[in-house]
C-alpha cells in the first residue's frame, strides 16, 4: 500500500511517461504524481503552520530578546565607558589647569623676587654712587683748599727767593715793598 500511490499512477501513465531520465526503469515521475498532492498539501499546511506558530510565538521573541538584552548591555557598557572617559578627561583637564596655575604662580613669585632683588641692588648701587659722589666732592674741596693754600705759600717763597737772589747779586737787602711790587709786576706780566 505504501508503494501503491506511486505504482498505480505509473500504470495509468504507462509507456507515455517514459523519458530518457527514467532510464526505462519506471514509468512515472514522482513530483508530477497528482494523487500525492493532497497528502503533501495537508502535511505542508500543518507543518508550516506549526513552524510559523513556533517561530512567531516562541523562537523569534526569545532570540530577539537575547539580542536586545545583549545590545542593551553593550550600550550600557559603552555609556559607562564614555562617562568614565569624560571623567578622566575632566580630571586630566583639572590637573593641567592646576599645573598651569602652579607654574604661573611660581613664575610670578620668581619675577617678584627678581624685581625685589633688582630694586634692592639698584638702591644699594644708588646709595654707593651717592656716597662716592659725596666723597669725591669732599676730596675735590680738600684738593682745592690745599691747592689754594699751596698757591698762597708760593708767593711768600717767591718773595723770599727773590730777596735772597737780589742780596746775593747786589749785596743789599731789598725792601720788602719793592720785592712785592716786582713780584706783582712779573705775575701780571
Amino acid at each position, binding site marked *: 500500500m505504501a*508503494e501503491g500511490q506511486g505504482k498505480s499512477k505509473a500504470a495509468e501513465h504507462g509507456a507515455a511517461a517514459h523519458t530518457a531520465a527514467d532510464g526505462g*526503469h519506471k514509468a512515472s*515521475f514522482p513530483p508530477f504524481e497528482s494523487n500525492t498532492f493532497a*497528502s503533501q498539501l*495537508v502535511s505542508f499546511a500543518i507543518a508550516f503552520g506549526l513552524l510559523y506558530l513556533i*517561530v512567531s510565538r516562541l523562537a523569534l521573541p526569545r532570540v530577539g530578546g537575547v539580542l536586545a538584552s545583549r545590545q542593551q548591555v553593550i550600550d550600557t557598557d559603552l555609556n559607562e565607558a564614555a562617562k568614565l572617559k569624560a571623567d578622566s578627561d575632566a580630571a586630566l583637564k583639572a590637573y593641567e589647569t592646576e599645573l598651569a596655575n602652579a607654574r604661573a604662580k611660581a613664575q610670578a613669585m620668581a619675577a617678584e623676587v627678581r624685581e625685589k632683588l633688582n630694586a634692592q641692588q639698584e638702591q644699594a648701587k644708588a646709595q654707593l654712587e651717592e656716597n662716592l659722589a659725596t666723597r669725591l666732592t669732599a676730596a675735590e674741596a680738600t684738593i682745592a683748599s690745599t691747592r689754594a693754600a699751596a698757591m698762597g705759600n708760593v708767593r711768600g717763597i717767591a718773595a723770599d727767593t727773590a730777596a735772597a737772589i737780589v742780596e746775593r747779586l747786589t749785596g743789599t737787602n731789598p725792601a720788602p715793598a719793592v720785592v712785592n711790587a716786582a713780584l706783582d709786576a712779573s705775575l701780571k706780566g
Partner: protein
Amino acid sequence: MADPIHQFEIHKIFSLGHIGNQEIAFTNSSAYMFGAVALVSVLMIGGSAGRALIPSRFQSVAELSYEFVSGTVRSSIGEEGMKFFPFVFSLFMFILTANLIGIIPYTFTVTSHLIVAVALALMVFLTVFLYGLYKNGLSFFKLFVPHGIPIYILPLVTVIEVISFLSRPVSHSVRLFANMLAGHITLKVFAGFVTSLSALGAIGIFGAVLPLAMTTALTALELLVAFLQAYVFTILTCIYLNDALHPGH
C-alpha cells in the same frame, strides 16, 4: 544502474483519512516536513535557551539565522516590513532545512516536489495580493501602472506588468523545485556511475574515481545551491512583499 528518480518517490506511512475520495496520508514527505520543523524549532529554541551574553556556537547559529533574515527583511522592505519577519523567517528556515536535509544520502528532499514549492510560492503570492489590497485598497493596482510612462504605451506596459505579476508564483516555485530536482538527479546519476563502474572490476574501480570526484564536487555545489535557493526564495518573497507595502514604483 540505480534509478535517479527513486529518491523522489512518496511512500505512505499511515493513512489519516479521506477528503472526498482522495486519501490523505502521512507520507515520508510529511515526516521530513515535520523533521525540518522540529530541527528549526530545536535550533531556535534550544539555541536561545542559554540566553548567554557571549553566545555558544549553538546560540550563535540561532542568532546568525535571526540576524541574517531580519537584515534581509529590513534592507529590502524596511522597518515596517518587520511584521512579516516571522513569515519570511519560517519560509527561509523551512526551505533551507529541507534542502540541507536532502543532501544527506538516502534522505528525501521535500522541496524537490513541485506541489510543495507551488504551495510555498502561492502562499507568498496570496499574502502579497491580499495584504496589498487590505493595506492600499484599490491603489494597490497602481503596481500595474508604472509612473511616468507615456500614455500611448501605458496599456501595453500594464498588460506586461499584470502578466509578470501573475507569473511570479510560477517562476518563484519552479526555480526552487527545478533546482533541487535537477541537482539531486545529477548527483544520483554520477553516484550511479561509481557503483556501476566499480562493478566492472579493477579497471572499473580505477575509472570510478572520476565520477566519485564529480559526486564530491557536486555535493559541495548542492550545499551551495541548497542555501542559495533558500536565500533566493526569501529575497524574492521580500521584494514581492515590498510591492504589497509600497505599490507605487
